[in-house]
């Protein structure tokens, strides 16, 4: 049983990091659909970094730098060029997925999965059965708490929220909402890098193309489901992980009777239900970014 718990924690951790990135962006007024792309970039950069530098720390730094660069690009396009957040975010995701494939191809001359000799440090025997979890999994609750503190207990967090909720109020207090969004996206970039690092180097130590497999989108959904609150979003992300684990369980137990595809769709179905529930409870999950205005650019 411990093991299933560990596996679920393991699969939930990247989702939580991605969800936190989504929450921070959402607070600052950005509907961040580039999470998937940043996450795969983080995963790729971590593994490639380890292979090339033989150092986890350097690899993490590279991953964080890459994801921050991607975030800055998104900021540039969305804030400075006023592009639509959703389309630009999806574009960033595409860039991440295509770019990592290309990077692997051009560095290693093949698209084969890249495996690293080692990955993130493990938390070690002091934690008993949990010893095989990576430090990022251990740190996850701490980071959730830190993000919560940042958003709910610092002036920076208030300014971030004001920039998202009422940019004019922020401006009249001398806060530049655009700069705050950059900060939010950059912090989100760091978190996406961690999400990717945990996914690829938490225990697998491998990078395969498209290995995020929609986890970034689920992180985004968790951010919405969690009502833009870091703890809520983290719970939602863990909930998705649990649903995924239950789907596997169901495949093992009922696989002969229920189509596997239905069970594999469970996380997506759960996401839809989650979005629907949170809309019911809170009266709409709609971003206030004037989609009808797309026509009027």
């Amino acid at each position, binding site marked *: 049983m411990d093991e299933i718990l560990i596996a679920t924690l393991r699969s939930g951790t990247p989702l939580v990091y991605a969800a936190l990135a989504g929450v921070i962006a959402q607070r600052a007024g950005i509907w961040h659909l580039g999470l998937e792309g940043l996450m795969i970039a983080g995963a790729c950069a971590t593994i490639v970094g380890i292979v090339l530098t033989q150092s986890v720390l350097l690899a993490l730094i590279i991953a964080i730098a890459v994801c921050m660069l991607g975030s800055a690009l998104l900021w540039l396009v969305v804030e400075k060029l006023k592009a639509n957040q959703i389309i630009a975010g999806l574009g960033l995701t595409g860039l991440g997925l295509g770019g990592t494939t290309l990077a692997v191809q051009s560095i290693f001359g093949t698209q084969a999965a890249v495996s690293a000799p080692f990955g993130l440090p493990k938390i070690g025997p002091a934690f008993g059965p949990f010893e095989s979890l990576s430090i990022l999994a251990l740190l996850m609750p701490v980071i959730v708490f830190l993000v919560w*503190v940042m958003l709910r*207990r*610092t*002036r*920076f967090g*208030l*300014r971030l*929220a*004001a920039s998202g*909720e*009422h940019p*004019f*109020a*922020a*401006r*009249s*207090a*001398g*806060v530049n909402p655009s700069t705050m969004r950059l900060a939010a996206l950059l912090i989100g970039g760091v978190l996406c890098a961690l999400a990717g690092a945990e996914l690829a180097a938490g225990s697998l130590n491998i990078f395969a193309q498209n290995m995020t497999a929609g986890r970034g989108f689920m992180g985004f959904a968790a951010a919405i489901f969690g009502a833009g609150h870091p703890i809520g979003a983290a719970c939602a992300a863990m909930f998705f992980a649990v649903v995924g684990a239950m789907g596997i369980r169901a495949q093992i137990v009922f696989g002969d009777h229920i189509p596997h595809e239905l069970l594999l769709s469970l996380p997506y179905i759960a996401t839809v239900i989650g979005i629907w529930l949170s809309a019911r409870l809170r009266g709409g999950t709609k971003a206030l970014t004037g989609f*009808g*205005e797309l*026509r*009027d650019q």
Partner: protein
Amino acid sequence: MESDHETLLKCRELTVRFGEVTALQDVDVSLEANRIHAVVGQNGAGKTTFARVVAGLVRPDKGEVRMNGSAIAPGNVAASRHSGIELVHQSFALPPSFTVAEAMQFGADGGGLYSRSALERRWQSHLDKLDIQVKAGQRIRDLPIESQQAVEIARALVSDAKLLILDEPTAVLSPEGAARLFDQVRHLRDRGVTVVLILHKIREVLAVAETVTVLRGGLCVAGPLETAQIDSERLSELIIGSSSDELDDEDRAALTGAATPAHLHAAQTSEGIPVLELKNVSTRRDSDGPGLDSIELSIRPGEIVGIAGVEGNGQRTLVRTIAGLSHVSEGTVGLNGSDVTQQSLADRRSAGLRIIPFERNVEGLSLNSPLWENWSALGLLRKPLFAMISPGGFRRDCIGALESWDVVYADINQRAGSLSGGNAQKLILSREIDEAAKLVIAAQPTRGLDIGATAFVWDALRAARARGCGILFVSSDLDEIFDISDRVAVMVSGHIQAVFEPPFEIGRVGAAMTGAVQ
């Protein structure tokens, strides 16, 4: 002008253009320290723009702002705040989901990390010092408008403000509320804060300000003048300028708030069936504020009923209820003698209901759509959803209607958002006031309009009354309400506190607005 006060704020040649519009043109103003200054002007005169330039929110195309003799970096809020300038906005700028304490904290210096209780203690004491009766833990969106304004003022005073600019602070207040605000302003002045009040009622200027500066069409036409040396006649001339000839005295007084119009015109309403009859109507509380509480109201054909009251006392819910956009939990809504409580807005519109909504740019128009589409919406809705239509026909009808309502526009396909406020409102009038109109709800129909446009709207409503329409006129401006209404109902917290017949007395109506039972 000799005086023993030092100059605190000095603006030189401020010029601001927004595209084609020149909002400010070479404005030179010097304001002395430790006094209460007023800046007046009609809608669109450039008052808000002036305040925003001083506060650093708008970067002027030309000119400079000096505080205590040193120039402030233009268009930089932080620099302006640093030199002691604080602005309280016309429509407040507080994130609704924040608590009062958070709203203060996010603009304040110091203390990056906080605990909720420490934060609330810190700002509660600040509020207490300013004598503002608000709990620091309450959320902005749960506060009544008056408290929100108080919070805005408290927020502006978190740092050590030397110059406090209040942009039309009385627009949302009852006369008593305004009087209390003025007391507080004097109190602040005594504590060494220089106050600039942006106003557009002469009555208020004369009541509180020591000097007055008049803007018209972006120009500074006079001032600062000592209020002690000016009378309301002269001030009203300065504000209105030459266009004042066309207005009758009462309208003119109503427009400048120079004197309370004593509406003597007795209601000449026909007997007939009431066009609107609300019987014991209640609704639940919603995001717009308190729900309606047993509303009894009827409007006869050819009658204008004014709804007075401080904003946020259920006026919006009232309008939405009559429109069928709010769920009625109790009571009945009657239009032309038939019960429409269960009917949709489409049906009510067929029965002759017309609405000039509160938010011209949100509820009234689709700003990015062409004029003719905006105008045709009502006509299109009368057809089946997938009926073939002829846009050419609609365009022609629209051109005809806009012409007869004197709307100035360039092209029938231009965006509604490119119309000036007055013309936009005329477009709405041309759509809503047609032959079949029986009941017209006019919700703040003159808000933000200049004098010509305001007079136009009043005349249009009076003409509709003459044709036998019933009109529900909602406004927070008592002068305007008194000028146009045949009866005035005062709303407080979702119920009708009192109903007045002419002649109206500002004192009694004002008292009713604060909830005092008559």
